[in-house]
């Protein structure tokens, strides 16, 4: 147990654990000590000096060791100097004065120093309205300047640090928060100070500039308008915007976010999303998000969105009324009955998936999840239980990451596991190739592609590692699809499941799938299944495809779709699949409606509408309900909340969940928001709900599938190569490619080869190779096994599982 100490801050007595910093002890009782450089997520540096306070300590008699009394109270001795509240830990009997004459004078004086070289261009500053410097100046600032304006330091005002982040050198107050974030939290120290003294400047020397997938966070914690995103700068004033609560839809982490919106002329009077901000959820993303989540939201505003239903007439897709379209769709489904199936993706909300599943069930058809990664039956039964939080993992916990490149697949998990490892959790990374997370792991294990299952099954036999797994107080396993397809990942899941089986239902234990989509876990929880041979399944069937684009992903599936009996597609865009459809139903983007996603950690979280729906679009669950109605089935379509009620009644693991419950909050630490912005940065306070982690009820413990398909060993030979799919954070996924800003980071579809391999092929970096008919640029990476070609998914090449392929210089 940590010792508790009692102290008095501005007359208020409080008791906090030993080691607490004064600034945090004050914060807990509602006293906001002004500060700039301190950030509760980072090591204190005490450099801005804004938080100087008077600190008194009880006088102790040297001889007796007893406190000296002043009347009946202990005598308090104040030091000659003020002390920084952000670096000074509390001690028993301490008296802190943050509002005394002396402390207030100091706060005002430091502020004056900061303002001597600040441009005071608040009217054109993006931070205006949420700037602690501005706020403090209002509180303390003197109305007149003693400094001569002509002598102010001048510096560059529009410096792109990269394509995403801009720096205004004049506004920077040298607090180093951005630098420290990149160094301590992101582990990508690509920002630094240059020069010294008054000439101290922020620089980056990386290529591309500010090369980090967490860069946007620096704009939130920058206490002034020195760092802004290329996306938002000069976009709007903070006070003109509304805040809409949401969940990031880019991966399985489920980061809590806020969409800031404004109705504006530029968008034809419509509500436009101006920026994405993280929203605090200490159990999910703390106060951070990755750049993909921050910048890849523009897809919903794209002009190519479908706004009206389409039906095929005389071979052409033509606009039609909802009434007609729904009728056609329903009648075809009714005809097909059990010869129908639903093919849906994890982009859909739980409510959408639930209705789709119900529809399929009622017609006797199947509900299939469109995915390249399997094993979800196991994450639904052996997933992490309620109470699981990476933020609380440290010594005693073992985290095993298998076949996943978390940095690219789920950046926030990467960040959280890095932090857990730094708190002494045992991180074990198992992969066929080198990945970034290895830097923080205690053990690294390499295997040859195809040997995943065997490698995992042997883990417990390995010295040290076996002990770290079996003997761990807590064990979490994350598995992914790095280099794997549906079969391989399903088999891998089964192997991993064996290791956590005995721990089912215990918080901070279990199996996590690093899913490609925000709600894949939700689909598995609802009983969706994956199908290994979609092409075959499509033949002669009526298929209801919701927000999935098999034809776009794989020419073979496009061909197969033509063999289907009838194709209903529910989509945002006229995708390759939609182009082949008989009926196209225009859906709303998730930013335009309500719903919930279930994260990979099995946390159900709500998102709310941010923008107005486009044209005649409808929410997915509502469309399904309307089709059902045509079929005489009763599905809930009036509101997402009602669908959830139905779901809670029908699905074991969702029992008890309501929209009300999902909206509940409890106090989080650090406290951000409230009266001040500077403490946590501009990150949004979470008033809208922390979500609920699903319980694992014993009844849910379905056994692992009996026939585990062993991934055959894939051994390349002579002139044949092993081509395996990998995930890149920035790819050509429809949600990403519509973001102008990220285009440069997406770059070209490139195959990653070991330098020696490239030499054999006679190509250099930047050259091209031909693989299965596609020509790809070559990038070199010494972490790739020789004779293996890593091919990124969603970059126009249809490699969805490891294949032996011919590679040649193109």
């Amino acid at each position, binding site marked *: 147990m940590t010792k508790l100490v009692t102290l008095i801050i501005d007359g208020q007595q409080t008791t906090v654990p030993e080691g607490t910093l004064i600034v945090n002890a004050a914060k807990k009782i509602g006293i906001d000590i002004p500060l700039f450089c301190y950030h509760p997520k980072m090591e*204190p*540096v*005490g*450099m*801005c*000096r*804004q938080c*100087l306070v008077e600190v008194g300590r009880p006088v102790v008699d040297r001889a007796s060791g007893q406190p000296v009394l002043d009347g009946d109270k202990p005598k308090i001795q104040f030091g*000659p*100097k*003020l002390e*920084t509240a952000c*670096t000074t830990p509390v001690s028993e009997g301490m008296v802190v004065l943050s509002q005394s004459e002396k402390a207030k004078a*100091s706060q005002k*004086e*430091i502020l*004056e*120093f*900061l303002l*001597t*070289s600040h441009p005071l261009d608040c009217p054109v500053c993006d931070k205006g309205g949420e700037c602690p410097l501005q706020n403090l100046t209002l509180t303390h600032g003197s109305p007149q300047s*003693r*400094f*001569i304006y002509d*002598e102010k*330091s001048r510096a560059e005002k529009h410096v792109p640090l990269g394509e995403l982040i801009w720096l205004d050198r004049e506004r920077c*107050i*040298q607090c180093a928060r951005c630098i420290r974030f990149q160094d301590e939290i992101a582990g990508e120290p690509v920002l630094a*100070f240059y*020069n*010294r*003294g*008054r*000439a*101290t400047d922020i620089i980056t020397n990386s290529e591309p500039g500010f090369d980090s997938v967490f860069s946007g966070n620096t704009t939130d914690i920058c206490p002034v308008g020195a760092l802004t995103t290329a996306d938002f700068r000069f976009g709007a004033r903070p006070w003109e915007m509304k805040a809409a609560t949401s969940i990031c839809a880019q991966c399985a982490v489920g980061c809590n976010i806020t969409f800031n919106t404004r109705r504006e002329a530029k968008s034809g009077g419509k509500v436009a999303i101006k920026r994405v901000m993280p929203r605090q959820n200490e159990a999910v993303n703390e106060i951070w998000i990755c750049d993909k989540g921050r910048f890849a939201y523009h897809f919903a505003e794209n002009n190519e969105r479908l706004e009206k239903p389409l039906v095929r007439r005389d071979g052409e897709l033509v606009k039609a009324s909802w009434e007609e379209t729904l009728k056609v769709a329903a009648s075809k489904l009714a005809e097909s009955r059990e010869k129908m199936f639903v093919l849906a993706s994890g982009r859909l909300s739980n409510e959408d998936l639930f209705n789709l599943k119900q529809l399929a069930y009622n017609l006797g058809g199947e509900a299939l999840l469109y995915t390249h990664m399997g094993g979800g039956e196991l994450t639904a039964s052996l997933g992490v239980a309620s109470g699981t939080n990476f933020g609380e993992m440290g010594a005693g916990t073992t985290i095993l990451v298998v076949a996943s490149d978390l940095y690219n697949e789920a950046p926030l998990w990467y960040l959280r596991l890095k932090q857990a490892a730094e708190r002494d959790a045992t991180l074990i990374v198992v992969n066929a190739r080198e990945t970034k997370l290895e830097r923080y792991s205690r053990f690294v294990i390499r295997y040859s592609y195809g040997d995943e299952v065997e490698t995992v099954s042997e883990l417990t036999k390995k010295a040290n590692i076996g002990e770290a797994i079996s003997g761990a107080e807590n064990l979490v396993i994350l598995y992914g699809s790095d280099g794997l397809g549906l079969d391989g990942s399903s088999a891998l899941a089964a192997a991993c499941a064996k290791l956590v089986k005995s721990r089912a239902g215990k918080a901070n234990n279990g199996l996590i799938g690093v899913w490609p989509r925000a709600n894949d876990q939700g689909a598995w929880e609802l009983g969706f299944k994956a199908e290994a041979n979609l092409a075959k399944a499509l033949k002669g069937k009526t298929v209801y495809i919701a927000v999935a684009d098999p034809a776009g992903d794989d020419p073979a599936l496009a061909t197969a779709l033509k063999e289907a009996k009838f194709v209903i597609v529910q989509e945002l865009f006229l995708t390759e699949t939609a182009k082949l459809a008989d009926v196209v139903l225009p859906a709303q983007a998730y930013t335009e409606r309500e719903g919930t996603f279930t994260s990979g950690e099995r946390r159900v979280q709500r998102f709310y509408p941010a923008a107005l729906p486009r044209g005649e679009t409808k929410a997915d669950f509502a469309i399904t309900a309307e089709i059902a109605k045509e079929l005489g089935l009763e599905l809930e379509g009036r509101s997402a909340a009602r669908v959830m009620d139905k779901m809670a009644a029908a699905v074991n693991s969702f029992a008890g969940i309501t929209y009300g419950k999902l909206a509940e909050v409890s106090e989080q630490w650090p406290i951000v928001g409230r009266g001040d912005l500077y403490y946590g940065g501009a990150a949004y306070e979470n008033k809208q709900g922390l979500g609920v982690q699903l319980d694992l009820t014993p009844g849910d413990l379905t056994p692992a599938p009996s026939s585990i398909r062993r991934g055959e060993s894939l051994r390349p030979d002579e002139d044949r190569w092993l081509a395996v799919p990998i995930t890149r954070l920035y790819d050509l996924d429809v949600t990403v490619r519509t973001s102008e800003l990220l285009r440069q980071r997406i770059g070209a579809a490139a195959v990653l080869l070991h330098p020696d391999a490239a030499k054999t092929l006679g190509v250099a970096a930047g050259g091209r190779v031909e693989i299965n008919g596609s020509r790809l640029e070559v990038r070199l990476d010494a972490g790739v096994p020789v004779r293996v070609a890593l091919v990124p998914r969603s970059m126009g090449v249809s490699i969805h599982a490891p294949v032996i392929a011919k590679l040649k210089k193109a």
Partner: protein
Amino acid sequence: MSQYFLLRHRDIPGIGKIDVYKKNGGFEAFKKAVTSMKPAEVTDAVKASGLRGRGGAGFPAGVKWSFIPNNIWPHYVVANADESEPGTFKDREIMESNPYQFLEGVAIAAYAVGANAAYVYLRGEFWPVAHFLDEKIAEMEKAGFLGDKLFGTDYSLRIHTHLGAGAYICGEETALLESMEGKRGQPRIRPPFPAVYGLYGKPTVVNNVETLTNVPLIIEKGADWYKSLGTPDSAGVKIFSLSGRVKKPGNYELPFGTTFRELIYKYGGGIIDDRPVKAIMAAGASSTMIVADDKALDTPMDYASVRALGADLGSASVIVIDDTVSIDWVIGKTIHFFEHESCGKCTPCREGCYWMLHLIERIEHGEKTKENVELLHSVAKQMQNKCLCPLGEFSTMAVTTAIERFPADFKD
């Protein structure tokens, strides 16, 4: 004084050669410490001698060594050879001319705190000195005074030099450690002090070159002998770096308690052109301005007496200013220095130095108005007690006291 203890090359030419040094009792103290004393006994001897740090703060060296905890390892010793305070040039002379005594001091300190590696951090400009020391260190290794299993015991020690690259702040011990770790030389918040959290986060003793050069004497001749030199408050001898408007500037090794008058007139040969002394800065550019009246001139130079003058002895870098010089020009120089050397980490120093520079430039360029002078004084005052490290405070010392003590020089 007829005999030198620190600047021994002045008595014994060639003491910079290892055989000459050995012939004159060199390395006996180190041998004695390693072969016949426990580490704690060495620390106790230094404690008892009353040796205070010569780098400026005057903290008792033995006490500092005794703070090194024995539950965190490894330990390091770092010799501070950054010597960048304007007016200070003593460490350079020691290292150039009496290098072995200094290195022996480093070695004894390392033994006392159980360090197996010691570093000498030299300012970058001491490039040739560093190369010279490297040679001396190699000689010592060859002669068996450095390396493994010294004098047949289990104790081993290596000394390395490390060059800075032009930053006054790296003389501040925590900035020095950051710099040694390959980072920007910016001070750390203290506590924790280097004795607990030093180089690479490990317990580290940082001592000035001159401080360490005293150590072999103490071990050899004993604490009592050492205490018999100097004054009760300030034991031993001290090198006074005398510069400015004197006829014979240079280093003078004298007992503590010598007066300013003796230093300037007896040793320094008096003032150029025999002008009167106007002001004294006792600790380089960081000092306050002492009005050089009779009382000041007759003040003995020890820590306590100089403090009574509203000044500090610091590293005893005595800059002498005569009546041909205007004090506003003097602080123009010091402000310029500190503005150039402020590391930029903390707000008051970074912004305050910049602001002071603007004001003094205005004052120097004919705007010696009451408002400007008062504003300068107030900005300097405003910086005080707020900075992260002493550099910021240093930058204001001459400024406030110049304006307070030499008001006439701030009027047209």
